[in-house]
């Protein structure tokens, strides 16, 4: 694996330069630089409060950065509303708490955005939704409501919902943290397949097995900064920073 995947020929799809974010007086992101190549899988990890979730939320502008620049697929994120909608339709996001729409069936959750944002005919959107539900392994749950599903199934629906917009980039914000242990694998399996299909992914997670298996690069965040980055091999076997070593020893010792 080429350690400098971001510069291996094609243009980066995400370019972040000196990204800062404050919540009131709290300095949450202190100058993040990151280039992500098309098809690259990035794992972001670090202690809670380190800014890793805030960072990936700035990429689809659920959080607005206040300094620096973020360019996604050639479009810079600014206050322009059309610009934001255009970027959001290119980026799928999966949340820790699933955030499915509880009043809609699984099928409607997945087909909603293509119908209302892409203006697809309903039949086409539902057909695609069924294909996606098959891809994440739960076509038989299509007519149920999210509340009737297990956590793992809900998260897979959430992945299908994000994929329904045929995004170029997928963001995962701690997708397995709210799941019971026996359900983590079914979600990770879907994510591994997605990674192998060439999707550009930014994943905030502490699932180090997943990182080792599919990540091209890993970023260790602490106190709003990137402390260290590199391939999984570099991070796991020769971490340079003491902070990284300490954190890894804490999460890997069990």
């Amino acid at each position: 694996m080429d350690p400098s995947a971001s510069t291996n020929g094609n243009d980066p799809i995400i370019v972040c330069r000196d990204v800062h974010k404050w919540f009131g007086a709290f300095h949450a992101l202190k100058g993040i630089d990151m280039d992500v190549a098309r098809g690259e899988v990035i794992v972001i990890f670090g202690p809670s409060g380190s800014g890793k979730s805030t960072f990936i939320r700035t990429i689809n502008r659920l959080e607005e950065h206040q300094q620096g620049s973020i360019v996604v697929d050639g479009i810079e994120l600014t206050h322009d509303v059309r610009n934001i909608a255009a970027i959001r339709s290119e980026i799928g996001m999966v949340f820790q708490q699933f955030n499915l729409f509880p009043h809609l069936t699984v099928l409607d959750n997945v087909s909603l955005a293509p119908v209302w944002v892409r203006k697809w005919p309903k039949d086409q959107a539902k057909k695609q939704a069924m294909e996606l539900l098959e891809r994440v392994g739960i076509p038989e749950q299509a007519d149920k409501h999210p509340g009737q599903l297990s956590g793992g199934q809900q998260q897979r629906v959430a992945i299908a919902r994000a994929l329904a917009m045929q995004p170029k980039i997928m963001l995962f914000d701690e997708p397995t943290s709210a799941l019971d242990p026996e359900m983590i694998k079914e979600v990770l399996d879907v994510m591994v397949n997605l990674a192998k299909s060439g999707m550009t992914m930014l994943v905030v997670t502490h699932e180090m097995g997943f990182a080792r298996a599919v990540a091209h690069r890993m970023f260790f965040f602490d106190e709003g900064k990137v402390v260290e980055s590199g391939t999984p091999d570099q991070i796991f076997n020769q971490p340079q920073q003491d902070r990284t070593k300490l954190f890894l020893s804490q999460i890997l010792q069990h």
Partner: protein
Amino acid sequence: MDLSTHDQLPPAPPAFLAWVRQNLFRTWYDSLLTIVSCVVVYLALSGAIRWVFTTADWSPITQNMTLFLVGQYPRDELWRLGIAVGLVSFFLGLSWGLWSGVMRSFALTLIGFYLFLALLPGTSLAAGIRLFLGLNAGLVVLSYWLARRWPPPSNYLLAGWIVSAIVGFFLLRGHAALPALERVEINLWGGLIVTAILAIGGILISFPFGVLLALGRRSTLPVVSAFSTAFIELIRGVPLISILFLFSLIVPLFLPANMRFDRMLRALVGMIVFSAAYTAENVRGGLQAIPSGQYEAAYAIGLRNLQITLLIVLPQALRKVIPAIVGQFISLFKDTTLASGVAVLEILSIGRSVLQGNPEYIGLQAEVFVFVAAIFWIFSYSMSVSSRRIETQLGVGQS
């Protein structure tokens, strides 16, 4: 599979006698309470039943039934009201067939009410009217059957309701230019139809305004939010009766003479304004209960603000506040009686005028007010039952 050996069954519920002993006669004071309560309930119930069926003199109601139902509406023009009632029966039957749920309890209540009026002996209702009411009960059932057999599209039915409401109002009102439909001043309308128009009109028209006010109050546009907040707080800080006075006495002073509209419509506007403010606060409670993750997920798939409100937020917020809103609509229905304070002849003021205008009814107040209360109870209870129905209907799959 052998259930008896492997699976432990839940303990059987106690037999009836054991249950009685356990719950009603466990100690000496339990027994005492049980016996005393039984005696009290027996005395009250038997007294009430005896009063209703023997002592009470229902003649103020039976002899004035037409008055209670339609007020002073010209008796020669009742056929117009008949058509309007027929339209309601027809569309209610269709709605029952198509939507079931809420419409079912309303339809059943209305059928029961028609039959009660048609079959009640000794009332002033002419045989033709009784027959008409009986036929209406049949019409509800017939149109129910039609809708089951050939279900019409939902939006056609909705359009039918709106068109028939306008047609019905126009029929009742008439127009000076049409000789067959001479104008009937709204001030002559009275009784149950006025109560129904105030309640149904108030509920249906105030609801969308209430939702808009609730959204307005949470708007990020300062002018919209300030206006909505000021309106809601102003109206909620004032008793309904004073709003009704305001609309019926003061507002006409500001309007040119040819724009003055009837007492009933002024009262209706007052009720709509009042109810909209309360609906807004109830709906706002529902809006606040929507977790921010719902907005984030909706933004993340590229929906725009208006789409998020209509597709994601309102459907969830409204179903959370159904019990509160129905409770508020029930009180609005009962508050229509306050319109008697501004000389609108709804059913309670008909009752009062019947008592005041006829010396032979002296001492029969109880009968009149019990009758009016019973009418209100029947329809309020039907609303409350239907609210529970909506909750169970919409509760499916809620997480």
